[in-house]
C-alpha cells in the first residue's frame, strides 16, 4: 500500500496558512486520507516540530499541544519511534547511499 511520509517542513506547511506550500501540503494529506493511504512520521519529526513552532514563543504551549496531539491521535498516522535498531538501519542506508554517490 502506498504511504506518505511527512517531515517537519510538511507539518509546518500543513498547519500554517501563510507558509509557501500550505495548499500543497493540505492537498497531499487530504488525498492520502481520502485514499486510505498510510501517513508516516517519526518521533524525531515531532520533537523538531515542537522546537520549531514553540521556540521564541511563536506558539503558546497550550495551542502547540493541540496541534501535536492531533497528529498523535489521528488513526491513519503511523508514528514511528526511532530506536537504536531503526537508527542503525537508517545509518547503514545512509552510508550505502554515500558510497554510491562517491562513485
Amino acid at each position, binding site marked *: 500500500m502506498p504511504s506518505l511520509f511527512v517531515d517537519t517542513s510538511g*507539518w509546518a506547511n500543513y498547519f*500554517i496558512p501563510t507558509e509557501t506550500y500550505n495548499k500543497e501540503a493540505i492537498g497531499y494529506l487530504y488525498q492520502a486520507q481520502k485514499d486510505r493511504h498510510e501517513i508516516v512520521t517519526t518521533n524525531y519529526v515531532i520533537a*523538531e516540530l515542537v522546537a*520549531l513552532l514553540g521556540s*521564541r514563543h*511563536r506558539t503558546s504551549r497550550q495551542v502547540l499541544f493541540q496541534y501535536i496531539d*492531533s497528529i498523535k491521535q489521528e488513526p491513519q498516522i503511523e508514528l514511528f519511534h526511532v530506536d537504536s535498531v531503526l537508527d542503525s538501519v537508517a545509518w547503514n542506508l545512509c552510508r550505502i547511499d554515500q558510497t554510491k554517490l562517491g562513485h
Partner: protein
Amino acid sequence: MSKTFTIELPDDMAQQLGVATNAVEAPLQKLILDTLNTLSELRRSLQNDNLLVRASAVKKLGELGIEAAIPDLAQALKDRDHIVKAAAVDALRKIGTEDALSIIGQNQHTNRQNSTNVPSLMSLAGTLKIGTIDLGENHDRYTAEDLEQELSDA
C-alpha cells in the same frame, strides 16, 4: 541438608508460553522455570514506585516475547505514567501476536474516546496563524538560530 521439590508442569506449557521449540537448546523444563522466575521478578518490579524500574520491567517483558506477559503488559497500559504506558505499547508490539496487537488497538480506541477535546487533524489544517512564510522551508536554519539564542541566553 538438601531439599527436593517437584513442580508439575502441564504438557502444553511450552505452547502456553509461546516458546519457539526450534530455538530451544537447553532442556525445556529449565527454560520454562527460568522464564517463570523472570516473569515473577518482572511482575514484582511492575509494582515498584520508581517509574524507571516499572518501565524497564515492561521493556524486559516485551523482550521475553512470550504471550504469558500479555496480561501484565495490558495492565501496564493503565500505568499512571506515560513513559510506562509507551513502553507497554512497544513491548506488546514486540510480542506481536494477534492478542497483543488487539490490546494496543483497544487501548488507542479508549484513549481517543477519552480525548474528545482534541480537534481532528483535518480541522486544524491551515489554522496556525503565526505569520511566517518560510518556517517549513528553512526549518533547519530557524532551529539552529533558536538553539544559538537559547545557548547565548543561558
